[in-house]
C-alpha cells in the first residue's frame, strides 16, 4: 500500500545524469499515453497524434537492425551505455532508458470487467492481417468499412453491436446486465451495405461481476453445507431462520442492503451514498482523516 503522505514528493530522486534521461522519458510517455488512452467519450483526438507518435517512434529506434518488424523493433529502446556515474561506488552502472511500445503488432481483442456495468475492451490488428484483408477485399477495404464491436451476451443469449472508430484502440462499454458471460468480436461493416459483416477477431470470454444479493434465486429451504474436514455434504432448511426473515426482501438491492445494515447497526452513522465505497487503502477517500 503506497501511501499518499508524500503528496508533495516528486520523483526528484535521480542524480543529474539520470535526471536528463527521466525528463525525456516523461515527455515521451505523455505523448504515447495520449494515443493509447481513448475512451468512448473521447473519440476524436487522434489521427494527428497517432502519426506524430509513429514518427517519433521511428526516430527513437536507433538500433533498428532487426529485420522482421517495422515499428515493433523499438519495444525496448536500448540506450544502455556503460558510463560510470558520479554516485555509483566504483562500479559501472548501466544507464537505462525504456518506453512502452506503442503497439505490439498483434491481432488481438481483450475484454476486462471494470465494474458490473462497464467492460473495458482493447484491440489491435497486426500489419500482416491488415494486408491480408486488403488483399482479400480490395485496397479500399478499411475506408469503405467501419469498425464495430459485436457484443455477445452468452448468458442471456443475445447480440448487439457498438460502432467504434478507427482512431481508437480501446473502449469502455456500458452493459445493462451484470453477472453475465460475454464474448466480443471486432468486426467491420460496409458503410453502404450494413448487412455485410466481416469478423476481424474475437475476444476472450469474460464473466462480469454480480451487483446485487441473489435472494430471489436462492432456495432457502435447501441450503447446501459442506464439512471441509470430512467432505460431508448436508442440506438444511433455512426458511424459518429469523436472520433471514429479517433480511427477507430488504436483502435485495444495494440501497436495501444498506437499510438492512442500518437496522442492524442502529447506533452507527452509515453514509448511504458511500456505502459501497469502502474506505480501504485502495480508496482515496480514506486518506483524509
Amino acid at each position: 500500500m503506497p501511501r499518499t503522505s508524500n503528496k508533495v514528493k516528486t520523483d526528484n530522486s535521480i542524480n543529474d545524469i539520470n535526471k536528463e534521461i527521466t525528463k525525456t522519458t516523461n515527455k515521451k510517455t505523455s505523448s504515447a499515453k495520449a494515443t493509447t488512452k481513448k475512451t468512448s467519450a473521447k473519440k476524436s483526438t487522434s489521427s494527428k497524434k497517432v502519426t506524430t507518435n509513429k514518427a517519433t517512434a521511428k526516430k527513437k529506434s536507433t538500433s533498428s537492425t532487426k529485420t522482421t518488424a517495422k515499428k515493433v523493433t523499438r519495444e525496448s529502446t536500448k540506450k544502455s551505455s556503460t558510463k560510470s556515474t558520479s554516485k555509483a561506488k566504483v562500479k559501472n552502472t548501466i544507464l537505462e532508458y525504456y518506453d512502452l511500445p506503442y503497439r505490439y503488432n498483434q491481432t488481438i481483442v481483450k475484454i476486462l470487467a471494470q465494474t458490473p456495468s462497464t467492460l473495458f475492451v482493447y484491440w489491435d490488428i497486426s500489419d500482416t492481417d491488415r494486408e491480408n484483408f486488403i488483399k482479400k477485399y480490395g485496397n479500399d477495404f478499411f475506408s469503405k468499412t467501419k469498425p464495430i464491436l459485436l457484443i455477445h451476451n452468452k448468458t442471456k443469449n443475445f447480440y448487439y453491436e457498438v460502432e467504434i472508430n478507427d482512431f481508437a484502440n480501446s473502449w469502455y462499454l456500458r452493459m445493462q446486465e451484470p453477472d453475465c458471460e460475454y464474448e466480443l468480436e471486432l468486426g467491420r461493416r460496409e458503410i453502404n451495405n450494413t448487412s455485410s459483416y466481416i469478423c476481424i477477431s474475437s475476444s476472450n470470454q469474460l464473466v462480469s461481476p454480480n451487483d446485487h444479493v441473489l435472494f430471489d434465486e436462492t432456495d432457502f429451504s435447501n441450503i447446501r453445507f459442506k464439512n471441509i474436514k470430512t467432505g460431508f455434504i448436508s442440506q438444511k432448511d433455512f426458511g424459518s431462520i429469523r436472520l433471514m426473515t429479517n433480511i427477507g426482501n430488504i436483502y435485495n438491492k444495494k440501497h436495501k442492503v444498506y437499510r438492512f445494515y442500518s437496522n442492524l447497526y442502529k447506533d452507527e452513522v452509515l453514509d448511504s451514498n458511500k456505502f459501497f465505497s469502502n474506505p480501504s487503502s485502495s480508496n482515496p477517500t480514506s486518506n483524509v482523516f
Partner: protein
Amino acid sequence: MTTNEKGYVCFILHAHLPFVHHPESEDYLEEQWLFEAISETYIPLLNNFKKLENEKVNFRLTMSITPPLLSMLDNEMLQKRYIKYLKQHIELSKKELIRNKGNQEVCKLAQYYLDRYSNDLHIFKDIYNCNIIQGFKYFQDIGLLEIITCGATHGYFPILYLNEKTIRAQIAVGVQTYEKYFGRKPRGIWLPECGYIPESDKYLKEFGIQYIITETHGILYARPTPVYGTFAPIVSPNGIVAFGRDIESSRQVWSSINGYPGDPNYREFYRDIGYDAPYDYIKPYIAHNGARVNTQIKYYRITGKTENKDYYNPQWAMDSVEKQAGHFFDCRQAQINYLYSQMDGHKPIIVCPYDAELYGHWWYEGPDWLYILFKKIYYDKCDYKLITPSEYIDLYPEIQECIPCRSSWGANGYSEVWLNPLNDYVHRHYHVAGDRMVELAHSFPNEPKDSLKRKALNQCARELLLAQSSDWNFIITNQTMVDYAHKRIKDHIGRFTKLYYQIKNNEVDEIFLDDIMEKDNIFPDIDYMIYA
C-alpha cells in the same frame, strides 16, 4: 475472560509495501515508505505484542505480510539504510531540543521522538538483529499471531487472469516466499486488493491455500445467497473458504468522517517539521533536491477543523485510545449478542481487516488502541473471543457452499481503481508480457542450472512480477507519485522485453543482466518454470 463465547472477532492486518530497492542511488524518497512503516507500524506492533505476551494476554491476530515487504525487510542494504534513517532522526531530535529550548511543550515532544527513535535503533539492531521478520515469526510460533501470505508482488488478479498462468505464478511465488521465511505453509492468503475471481480458486487449492478474505459483497452477492451474511464464512465449489469484511467495524476504524483516527487528541499527520521548520535548518533532513517532505516529526494534534493546531499531548491521546477501545469493545458485544440471537445457535464471526500501515503510520495511536482493546477483550467481561480464520474453520468446518462474488476492496468494490482512463494503457503490456513469459517457459524449458539462459529467464520472471504490482496503478489513479509509478512500469516492462528478445536471439548481455539482477533482486530462488 470468556468461556462460553457467543461469537468471535477476527482482526486481520494486511502489511504491504511495493518493492522499492535502488542500489544505484540513495535519493529515492519512495524508499522511506519502508522506514516510516518500520518505525511507526511494524516495531510498535511488535512492541505491543511483546507487552501483551508479558502480561499473559492470550490474544489472536492475523497478519498478511506480503512477499515484497518480506524481501525488503530481509534486504541488507535496506536494513543499513534504515539504520542511517534512524540515526538521522536521532540527530534531528537532538537538534530539535536545542532549537526549541524555550518551549517546554515542544521540548517534551522532541525528547519523546529522541527516545522513540533511539529505542527503535536498539530494538532493530540488538533485539532483532536488523531483521524484524524474526519478531513476527516468533509470535506466530507461540500461537498468538497467524501470518498469511499474499500474491508474489501484489498483482491484481481480476486483471491479470486473462493469462491464468500469471496468477498461478503470483500464488506460487507468494507461497514459496512465505515458506522460506516462516518455515511452514500458509493456510490463508490475502488476495491482493481483495481482488477475487473464481478462476483463481484452483490455483489457490493447488498451492494448499485454505482461505481468503473478500470484501463484504464478495460474500453478500455470492451464489447462492449466504444465509449468515458476512457473519460466517462460505466455501467455494473448489474448497476455498472465504471470509467477508464486516461493514460496521470497518467503518468505525476507517471512516474519514467519524472514524476513530479523526479524534482531536490524536497526532496530526499533515503538520510536520519538514514543512514547518526554517528551510536552511531542515534542509539536511528533507529531500536531496531540497523539496520539503515529511520527516515524521510532528508536534501537533488534530485539534479540530481548524488551521490553528494545538500541541500534541501523548497522555491525552492515550485517554482517547482508552475511550475508543471501550467503544469498539461495547459495539462488538452488542453486535455479537444480537447476531447470536438471530443465527440459531451458530456463532458469528466479525471479520475486521485493515491495512496494517493504518495502525501507526496513518493513525499514530493505532497500535496502542489494539493493545488496549486486546487486553480488554481478554480481561473484561464479554461474550466473545478473538480468533484467527484458521482456528474458526477448525472449530466450525461445516460451511455453506457458495461461489463468492467477483469483487475487490477498492473504491466502489470492483476494478475501477486499477482500470480507468488514467491507467488503462498499462494492461495490454501486462498481458503481452505475461503471454511472452509463458512462451519463454515453453520454448526454453528446464535450462541447465547455472546457465546464462536460465539466469536470464529467471530474471524475466522477476521483472514481470515486479511490473504487475497493483501499487503502480493505484498510485496513478491517486495521482500521488505518478512519475515514479510510470517509471517502474516502464523499467520492468522494458527490462523484461529487452531480455525476452535477448533470450530468443540467444544473445543475452550478461553485464546488463547482472546490473538489473542487482537492482531487482527480489525472489532469489525463483524458478521461471512456474510459467510452463
